[in-house]
């Protein structure tokens, strides 16, 4: 009696050494992919003029620049603070517009609940378009359409983020449990009823968390969209940096950091409370 003849293995068939069924190794393919990636990165480094040594050589310039920032000026703090409030308002209304756009687009652009394949593809392409065009490009367009100011910035943010949120919503809807949806369909519910009872409860937590994430990102975008005339604190950022007014620029940047930190803390509170 040899080893392995007792216990669970006693009943397992014993014979000559077995060979596992053939399979292809993934190592070769990974090596080729890694080599390809290295080539692309090396070429891209030349394109972006990647010269890390210059950071050291020019460190003197950078120190002079930083010194200005160590002495923030509070001469115009009232005006900057008001512009910070404007910035938050742009992000708030931009996010609201984005949600209003994203819900119908996301529903129509989900393969599993879209009423028709043509509608599905149409909604997907519209969302692609909204996401492909950067919010700053939209802002430049809206500045010509509705004039300089926060309204143009809010429209630009809302429309771009609407595409992003719509895409995220449709991905979430496509991943839901079809059984729970069928449980609602099976009582003879209409399409709207199925969405309200079978789909919405399943996607609500993820959608809320995506909205909060995008709101944080909208705050960051709103803080610079003034550079292209979209209103808010961004104009002052642009103005003070361009005129080498380092201590004023420092105040503006500190304010932006403060807003972003506040919103991040707030949204993580909401997330913990709601999800």
């Amino acid at each position, binding site marked *: 009696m040899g080893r392995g003849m007792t216990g669970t293995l006693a009943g397992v068939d014993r014979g000559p050494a077995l060979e596992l069924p053939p399979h292809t190794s993934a190592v070769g393919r990974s090596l080729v992919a890694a080599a390809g990636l290295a080539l692309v990165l090396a070429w891209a480094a030349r394109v972006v003029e990647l010269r890390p040594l210059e950071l050291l050589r020019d460190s003197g310039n950078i120190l002079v620049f930083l010194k200005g920032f160590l002495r923030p000026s509070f001469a115009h703090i009232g005006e900057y603070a008001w512009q910070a409030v404007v910035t938050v308002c742009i992000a708030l209304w931009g996010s609201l517009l984005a949600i209003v756009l994203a819900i119908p687009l996301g529903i129509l652009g989900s393969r599993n609940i879209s009423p028709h394949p043509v509608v599905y593809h149409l909604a997907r392409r519209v969302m692609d378009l909204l996401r492909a065009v950067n919010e700053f490009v939209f802002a430049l367009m809206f500045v010509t359409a509705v004039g300089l100011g926060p309204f143009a910035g809010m429209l630009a943010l809302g429309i771009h983020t609407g595409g992003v949120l719509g895409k995220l919503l449709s991905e979430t809807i496509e991943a839901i*449990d079809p*059984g*729970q949806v*069928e*449980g*609602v*369909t*099976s*009582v*003879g*519910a*209409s399409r*709207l*009823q199925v969405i*309200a*009872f*079978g789909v919405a*409860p*399943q996607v*609500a*937590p993820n959608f809320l968390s995506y909205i909060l994430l995008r709101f944080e990102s909208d705050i960051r975008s709103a803080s610079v969209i003034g550079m292209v005339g979209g209103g808010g604190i961004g104009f002052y950022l642009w103005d003070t940096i361009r005129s080498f007014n380092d201590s004023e620029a420092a105040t503006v940047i500190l304010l932006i950091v403060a807003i972003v930190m506040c919103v991040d803390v707030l949204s993580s509170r909401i997330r913990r409370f709601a999800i």
Partner: protein
Amino acid sequence: MKTIAPIFRLEHVSKHYSSRRALGTLSLTVKPGEFVAVIGRSGAGKTTLLRCLARFTPVTGGRVYFRDDDLATLRGAALRRHRRRVGMIYQQFNLVRRLRVLDNVLIGRLGHLSGVARLLALGRRFPSADRDIAARCLQHVGLLERAWQRTDTLSGGEQQRVAIAKILAQEPEVILADEPIASLDLANSEQVMDTLRHIATDSDLAVIATLHHVDFARRYADRVLAFRAGHLVFDGPVADFTDAEVQNVFHEGRPAKIADEALNAIGALEWVAG
């Protein structure tokens, strides 16, 4: 003996998924008050039959009539009306897990709402009459005190009872139950089957249930439909469903295997011809 109008009438029904035959040619009727057990191994076509009856999937051959409706012609509102009249019970319950228990029962009322009530229901506000019905149905399955709990906090057996409360609220004319007790323990299985049996007898409703357990079929059903590789191999009163028949349905002896191949060949011929 007076004749009762059938609730379902199937005429030469078959179902193919691309070229694979899921259901062979079959003709039968189901009457109100009948408790029909559908028996067979996995993949024998039991679930396909139920999905065809609920019109979740169209048949590829023959006709299915519900009362006087030809299911193939139903679209839009008429199809939703059919689904309201046909209640479904699932192995995995298919309740909306994040909703409260009461909301899941109220879902059963969705097909009955009209006008403003229908609009308000989208915001989960139901007329008091419908809320009362839902509460009574929950009481009937003994889960009224769980009304405000989130559905996924309930055990499997409790969730299946919620699903039954939902179907009671739906007021269907027939119940299709797809493996209603396959995920439940013995006590819960008996409670669910008792409730379904009472619905069939008291409300004169037809219940068509696919079952794995022959014992449960024998205890609760009036009639057995046994499927094997998509073909109906037994249709008769439960008393005639003998051990020999069970053997024939579930175990592939040599003679049975030959019978299978013959059936497959017939099926293929039918498909080519039809």
